[in-house]
């Protein structure tokens, strides 16, 4: 039912879907409404609005009698998630005109459950960045405040949801790329257990640690989206089917830990009541392990962009070697080049010990967390180390930027699920053991109010 004082963008995803399924709102009308908002995007959150396709889909869906779990839900996807027949550029000049000939598994699942994909969102090029400033197509403004950055790398997805262009958004989270912008845009952001959501059709950055992540307004919406997107995928050998212990999931009296090695800011104190102190002495190594392994994998993953098969190319190369050099010099951005060079350095014969140390650090961290989770059900820590950066602040010092990932990378390298809640300006991050994603949602609900 249309209510004059109530705007569509104020719906939660779950409420919207219920209304749409019961025909209380028309999916054609709501789709038109959100498309209009998308076309008036003032944040540079979107790289493209799929107006024609979205409208056509809405028309088709409106005639359906059996309706999917995400019926009519307006969704924005990050520009590194492949949607058949649409451009996926990873916000890079390298793939500026690349049209995907196939659907990623997550897009297929969204479509199978009747969601409507409105457009693709801006991001740091190839998901490499913390503030969103590394996009080849300009920085994204914060969805809640034009003077602030949105945060990266899923800058556009976060800003789009926060500014009411959609009701849920997908991102990818390699080192905090969903949770950091979620915190800065006052949203719920989630990085699932490694392997629980298929990576098939996600333009790869660091394969062993990245996952598709979800932006929503609350934990109920998140749980709904996760139930659709998760599951074993025959096209992704790293995907795993976790059996969820329903009894454990309910967890009436969760034991929550706080990390001894972290100095929690004052505003966190109310949440730390009733927590137990745990020690993760090697926590500070997460960042080093992360940047060593992530850059190595990125160097290898991005070598396929060579100007030969698809994507941008040059015409005037005199040899194959020249073609590679010219294409990669011309179309990759500075940060992407920096990480490719760093990764190749770490993997080279002379420096292979660095790569091995990186993997060893990660192995140790996994063991530490496994042990810790025998004693606690969840761990609290900040999401971002600082509040959102101002739009015109100098963002050129890579080390300063890498340090902003301090609290988020741990969940990536250890493969554990992590959610951030918008209860504090730097986000309240909650971690749980591998495979305990639903338990994590249940615990998160307690902190939501």
């Amino acid at each position, binding site marked *: 039912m249309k209510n004059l004082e109530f705007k569509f963008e104020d719906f939660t995803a779950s409420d919207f879907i219920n209304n749409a399924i019961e025909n209380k709102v028309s999916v054609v009308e709501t789709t038109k409404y959100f498309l209009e908002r998308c076309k008036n995007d003032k944040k540079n959150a979107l790289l493209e609005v799929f107006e024609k396709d979205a409208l056509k889909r809405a028309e088709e869906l409106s005639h359906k009698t059996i309706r999917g779990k995400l019926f009519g839900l307006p969704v924005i996807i990050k520009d590194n998630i492949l949607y058949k027949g649409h451009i996926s550029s990873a916000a890079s000049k390298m793939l500026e005109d690349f049209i995907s000939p196939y659907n990623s598994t997550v897009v297929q699942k969204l479509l199978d459950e009747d969601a409507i994909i409105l457009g693709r969102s801006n991001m740091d090029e190839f998901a490499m960045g913390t503030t969103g400033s590394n996009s080849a197509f300009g920085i994204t403004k914060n969805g809640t405040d034009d003077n602030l950055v949105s945060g990266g790398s899923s800058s556009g997805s976060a800003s789009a949801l926060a500014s009411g262009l959609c009701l849920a958004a997908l991102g990818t989270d390699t080192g905090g790329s969903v949770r950091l912008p979620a915190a800065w845009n006052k949203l719920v952001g989630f990085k699932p257990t490694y392997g629980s959501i298929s*990576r098939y059709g996600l333009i790869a950055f*660091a394969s062993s640690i990245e996952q598709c992540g979800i932006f929503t307004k609350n934990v109920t919406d998140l749980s709904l989206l996760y139930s659709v997107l998760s599951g074993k995928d*025959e096209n992704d*050998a790293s995907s795993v089917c976790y059996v969820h212990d329903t009894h454990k999931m309910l967890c009436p009296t969760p034991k929550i830990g706080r990390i001894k090695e972290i100095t929690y800011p004052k505003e966190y104190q109310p949440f730390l009541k009733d927590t137990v102190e745990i020690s993760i002495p090697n926590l500070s190594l997460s960042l080093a392990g992360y940047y060593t392994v992530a850059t190595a994998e990125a*160097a*290898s993953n991005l070598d396929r962009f060579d100007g*030969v098969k698809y994507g941008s190319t040059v015409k005037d190369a005199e040899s194959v070697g020249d073609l590679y050099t010219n294409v990669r010099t011309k179309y990759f951005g500075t940060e992407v080049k920096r990480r490719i060079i760093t990764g190749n350095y770490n*993997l080279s014969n002379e420096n292979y010990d660095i790569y091995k140390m990186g993997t060893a650090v990660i192995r140790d961290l996994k063991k530490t967390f496994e042990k810790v989770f025998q004693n606690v059900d969840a761990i609290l820590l900040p999401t971002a180390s600082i509040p959102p950066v101002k739009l015109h602040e100098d963002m050129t010092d890579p080390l300063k930027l890498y340090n902003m990932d301090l609290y988020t990378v741990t969940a990536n390298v250890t493969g554990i699920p992590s959610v951030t809640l918008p209860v504090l300006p730097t986000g309240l991050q909650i971690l749980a053991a591998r495979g305990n994603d639903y338990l994590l949602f249940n615990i998160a609900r307690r902190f939501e109010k």
Partner: protein
Amino acid sequence: MMTAINKANLPPRQKYDVVIGLEVHAELNTKSKIFCSCSTSPQIDKNGNPLPNSSVCPVCMALPGALPVLNKMAVEKTITAGLCFGCQINKVTVYDRKNYFYPDLPKAYQISQMFHPICLEGSVSLSNGRVIRLNRIHSEEDAGKLLHDDINDQTLIDFNRCGVPLIEIVTEPDIKSAAEAAEFLREVRSRLTFAGISDAQMELGQMRCDVNVSLKPIGQIKLGNRVELKNLNSFKMVERSIQYEIKRQTALLDDGKKITVETRKWNDAKQITTSMRNKEAANDYRYFPDPDQYPVHLPASYIQKLKKALPKLSGDYKKDFINLGLTPYDTEILTREKKITELFLETCKMNKDYKKIANIIINSKDPLTKNQIIEKLNFKPTNTDRARLTDIIQKIFAAGYENNKPIDKLINYFMGKVMQATKGEADPELTKEIIKSFLTEK
């Protein structure tokens, strides 16, 4: 007065030890590729030619976002290969990325195995009693093919072969001559075909071989500089290129020159090797475990199951055939190809004249069917046949011949002539008999 002696005709003086190691690639005959479900056989056009890029998908074309999913049959056949050579099978095996740029390698890395291959060690015994040790057999994916279009001056890429499963058999540097290398390769081909895991035809590129050759003064422990030979598409090319390379390196060392570490290409038209690229600026492949896949566990019970299912290999048949009373030469030829072994065995089920069956198969130029062999076995020459053949042979003898050769060679010579004259129609047994009678009469 002494005539000038051509140096090249003298046998090489044994001043140097020859050290040869082989890297043999063989395509496994799985139905689908190793990391996707594409068929390993491309589609065929109207003229019966394979259609380029007809068996490709996002995975083997390396589209963004595509991920490899391991074909278990490729692992299984690699284990079988290992069992054929008495290898040790690793309990846990890992696929690694070998990173390098080349247009036929769409991902810019080949998924291969560096640190934890499926098979380790193993060996092959040669007829001279020497044992060639294997270092490993690992599993990997093939690359595509570049097609050079000289008319339009462009290079085209066919990705059909991308992702076809390969095994790479790496030997220790135990081989000492071209002949040993050729024998080793024949044995590899025989085992792979008998095990039913590869068709291993070098001419079709289903089996490829890179050869490492180095020379060192006899007695020296330190190995000499190594030259890698490529572009070897037949056993003959392997043999010839090694012979040439030994001569070339010997001449250089004799002149006090150094051997350059390099990759050389066999030029079959000129029968020489030519420098392809200098190895000094060696590629750094930046191997690391493929983060898209988990390690593969190979339980002992699974290996045991494959061991039990292992079919008879050529060596087993050789023993059987010797027991049937065949000569080592006959058994050697009858066990070179699985098809021939099977034909022999099938025919033997219908007729017990093993020696005669063997002769018919060995002497036949064209492949025969079982029924054709039986027909030939039952063939009793009529008097007209004998008269016609005698007539032909008489004419050939009348043309004259060098009779200072041993009788075996003469028989072979006349056999050839008769077959030529009769377009291969003449019955070999009868022909031989008549020729023999002519020769002994004189």
